[in-house]
């Protein structure tokens, strides 16, 4: 596909030469200046900024994904639907939204371990997991997950046997991936909310397993 370059002169002027260099060096200072300017010009409402920050601090976070995982662990019919059509299965939870409108859920088993990355930018299921962790957006993870996933997992303290197949999912489109971790042994007597508390963000990205609560480990 040969995209037109008709808009490049503009990018050359602004994106390269000015916007990316000729501004205050401290990001805190230049961000504050940008907010002031946009507010003066009526291009942003500071109350809307506050509301977005509040949404990600208090409402949109990994507890959402954890609820889905716990439901799948206790409800076989839901789990089947989740693996068949995650977008439709998750709809009743009310979690569909930005960066979580088109979903695929990947089941980790004793034989297959799934791992999610975005090599080209940092696509992430924000609507289900909230703010992405810093390492997910950084070069080492983006660069190496697709060529050396076992080495990356080892840096998270997760060693997988040779008999396990590792499947890496590079989020190059608007499909957002969520890993359904294995339910840990010894949790048969736990309620759905108690199970949800065990589920970590890292396990839903695929860089960790969910551990049984202390005293229940096999």
């Amino acid at each position, binding site marked *: 596909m040969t995209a037109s370059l008709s808009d490049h002169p503009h990018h050359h002027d602004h994106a390269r030469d000015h916007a990316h260099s000729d501004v205050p060096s401290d990001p805190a200072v230049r961000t504050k200046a940008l907010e002031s300017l946009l507010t003066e010009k009526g291009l942003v409402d500071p109350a809307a900024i506050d509301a977005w920050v509040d949404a990600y601090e208090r409402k949109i976070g990994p507890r959402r994904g954890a609820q889905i995982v716990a439901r799948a662990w206790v409800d076989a019919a839901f789990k089947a639907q989740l693996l068949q059509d995650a977008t439709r299965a998750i709809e009743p939870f009310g979690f569909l939204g930005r960066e979580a409108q088109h979903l695929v859920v990947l089941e980790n088993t004793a034989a297959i371990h799934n791992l999610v990355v975005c090599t080209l930018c940092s696509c992430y299921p924000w609507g289900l997991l909230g703010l992405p962790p810093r390492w997910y957006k950084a070069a080492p993870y983006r660069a190496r997950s697709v060529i050396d996933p076992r080495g990356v997992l080892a840096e998270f303290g997760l060693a997988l046997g040779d008999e396990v197949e590792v499947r890496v*999912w590079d989020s190059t489109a608007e499909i957002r991936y969520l890993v359904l971790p294995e339910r840990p042994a010894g949790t048969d007597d736990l309620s759905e909310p108690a199970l949800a508390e065990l589920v970590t963000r890292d396990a839903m990205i695929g860089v960790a397993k969910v551990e049984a609560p202390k005293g229940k480990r096999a």
Partner: protein
Amino acid sequence: MNGVHDMGGMHGHGPVAPEDEKHEPLWHAPWEARMLGITRSMTYPKGFNIDRFRHIRELMPPHLYLARSYYDHWYAVCVAALLNGGLATKEEIKSGHAAAGSAKRNDAARADQVWTSQKTQGIFTREVATPPQFATGQRVRARNINPTGHTRLPRYVRGKVGVVQIHHGGHVFPDTNAHVQGEAPQHLYTVAFSMRELWGADASARDETCVDLWESYLEPA
């Protein structure tokens, strides 16, 4: 474009630095939260979209792309968008104040619109009139092409053969949408490539990488 952003398979960036998620702060500095809020709620030029956002980010000079942090990339994109769209001047960005006599708009997104925006934005499925060219289970080759504009075809899969895992239906095509040349939706597929196909005989014989690819990125194999 074959830019620094296309990182899959690169060496030399060092180890991943995981943070314990129980103790990791949501923000690593207060300005990050403000920058997220600005990016989500500011007024963009007409026709602006997520693919354009990603493309402008890719146009950062490589040394700055690697040196600056994630939300600082967002700052750079927002500023470039404002300048490109004529919504602000270089002097205004630098000073943090509107030029004397400049017009003030009254149509910025409001706080009470945030939740609607959150729920309704980001739907990229579209009807495509033509039937899908490829079927699940079919072998396909990622084309060896090197567009100088925006593309979501990573370098590390170009020329490689994989198997279609999922057909997702029609999705907005980033390569045109990023240049405000229309959504031009195409069929989207998840294609699985073996690690040996991607990285050679020393790679794991068992592992694979799945990549989401639009129809025009692919040819029969």
